[in-house]
């Protein structure tokens, strides 16, 4: 088997911030003692005056970002998803969302693939939390190429954006000249007729792997990459559901409130079809190597393959 190139999406966050920092004076990057882990350290090194390490105080960091945004700066507030969306939820809601300030939240270490740190740090609820904030844009890139495009798109948009990144190195799947990132537009990666898999984040690569296995057994699966969870590309979801008649969602997030919920909300109104949600089933995670956890919780290619096969039977 050929060697698959793997890079963590968080790598794309730090490197793109440096590029944007060179292009725009108004970018300010904030951290809460995790500059190394969120990969913003490279920005800090090149632009020390425009990097603010707030210390271990995420609630304050979100307020600082809000204040910066009122004066025309474009702050990227960085932390782990657990603290950015979890601990600082109300600050994000009231200090950033309600005044609709131009703050970008860079949340790394999302999902169960944080690995050994265990359940306290495995945030499987961040998308659910952020989705409920009016006008919050949520992007969950599938690989480093998409992550880099997402950071640029977030800068271009005037308004709050939640960017979700992972710690684990994941397959690079978008390295082709035709790749184009459009905020709020899903990407049809593989056409199929029997079932649709709408996937996000690291589950996109896993779903492509699953589709390959299913094809070998005569099941034709369509795979759609939903990098922007909000606003959701309802058109691509509805059209595909009408075509295949069966919908699977795959995400490294709770099945409550994330992509699965968003797709169900859309389909029950516009194209009711049977749906199977793949994700974390309302449980806390646990310590372990990331790849083993993804296998145990059924979020790798094999797990998605099995679930889809059972669903279409």
């Amino acid at each position, binding site marked *: 088997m050929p060697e698959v190139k793997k890079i963590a999406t968080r790598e794309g966050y730090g490197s793109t911030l440096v590029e944007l920092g060179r292009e725009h004076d108004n970018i300010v990057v904030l951290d809460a003692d995790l500059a190394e882990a969120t990969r913003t350290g490279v920005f800090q090194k090149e632009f020390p005056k425009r990097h603010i390490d707030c210390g271990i105080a995420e609630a304050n960091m979100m307020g600082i970002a809000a*204040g910066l945004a009122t004066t025309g700066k474009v702050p990227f507030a960085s932390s782990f998803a657990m603290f950015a969306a979890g601990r600082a939820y109300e600050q994000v809601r009231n200090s950033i969302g309600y005044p609709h300030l131009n703050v970008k939240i860079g949340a790394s270490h999302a999902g169960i693939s944080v690995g050994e740190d265990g359940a306290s740090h495995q945030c499987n609820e961040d998308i659910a939390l952020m989705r409920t904030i009016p006008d919050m844009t949520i992007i969950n890139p599938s690989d480093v190429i998409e992550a880099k495009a997402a950071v640029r798109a977030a800068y271009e948009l005037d308004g709050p954006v939640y960017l979700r990144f992972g710690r684990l190195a994941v397959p690079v799947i978008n390295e082709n000249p035709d790749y184009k990132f459009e905020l709020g537009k899903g990407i049809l990666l593989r056409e199929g007729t029997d079932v649709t898999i709408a996937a996000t984040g690291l589950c996109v690569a896993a779903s492509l792997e699953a589709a390959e296995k299913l094809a070998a057994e005569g099941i034709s699966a369509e795979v759609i990459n939903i990098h922007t969870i909000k606003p959701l590309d309802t058109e691509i979801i509805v059209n595909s559901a009408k075509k295949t008649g069966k919908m699977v969602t795959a995400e490294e997030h709770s099945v409550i409130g994330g992509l699965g919920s968003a797709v169900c909300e859309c389909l029950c109104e516009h194209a009711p079809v049977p749906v199977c949600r793949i994700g974390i089933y309302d449980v806390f995670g646990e310590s372990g190597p990331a790849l083993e956890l993804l296998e145990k919780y059924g979020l790798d290619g094999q797990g998605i393959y099995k679930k889809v096969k059972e669903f279409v039977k």
Partner: protein
Amino acid sequence: MDNLELQKLANEVRKGIVTAVHSAKAGHPGGSLSAAEVYIYLYFEEMNIDPKDPQKADRDRFVLSKGHTAPGLYSVLAHRGFFPVEDLKTLRKIGSYLQGHPCLQHTPGIDMSSGSLGQGVSAAVGMALSAKISNDSYRVYTLLGDGEIQEGQVWEAAMLAGHRKLDNLIVIVDNNGLQIDGNIDDICSPYPIDEKFRAFNFHVINVEDGNDFDALRTAFKEAREIQGMPTAIILKTVKGKGVSFMENQAGWHGKAPNDEEYKIAMEELEKAGEALCRK
């Protein structure tokens, strides 16, 4: 303006507060009245602002961290010319731009949405940091309640402000001694407030009578001289100041006067105004 003019203005601002809250049948008169003088001092004497150009880039910023006392701020903004005084009666009504708590997007002169306690001060620190990053000369003021400083986020913000030596930041604490459930020192004492801010590397100014314009003038002049550290101004004030039955009563933290109480309050303020005119 001389002190007499400022005092007359304070009396008018108090009428605006009482009228707005009475009209809304809800709101927070106590902490609005205790802060009337500091609001007036900031908007008429201290800050570089222009009611005709509320968004001008080099303006000084004000963040009302104790956002529930919006009626006091609205009344001062109206009297300063940001919007008509008559509109104070629309407070908290459907469709009004005068929301229950300050809203950045809808109200001229409001620099930050606030209301969830502890959050405004962080935004103020962010604004002060922004000025430092781009070498802007504006100053940033924020007003906190003494109950509000029970919120941990206030001290996260204070720690960073002290660490970053933000001498363009002035944190004001309205120490009226009362919060919803009673006396602040009975509930969860924030005292000593001055020593706490000192420990967070602030220059601290205690003002014994925060409802006195001379005392405010002295304090804000001192704050302008401070370099290399942020300033905390702690104002001893009277909650409900100016309306006899509201003074020092926790019950008037977040309650509107009924028609009879409104009449009594306005009569008191009319009399106080007449007395000032005879001076």
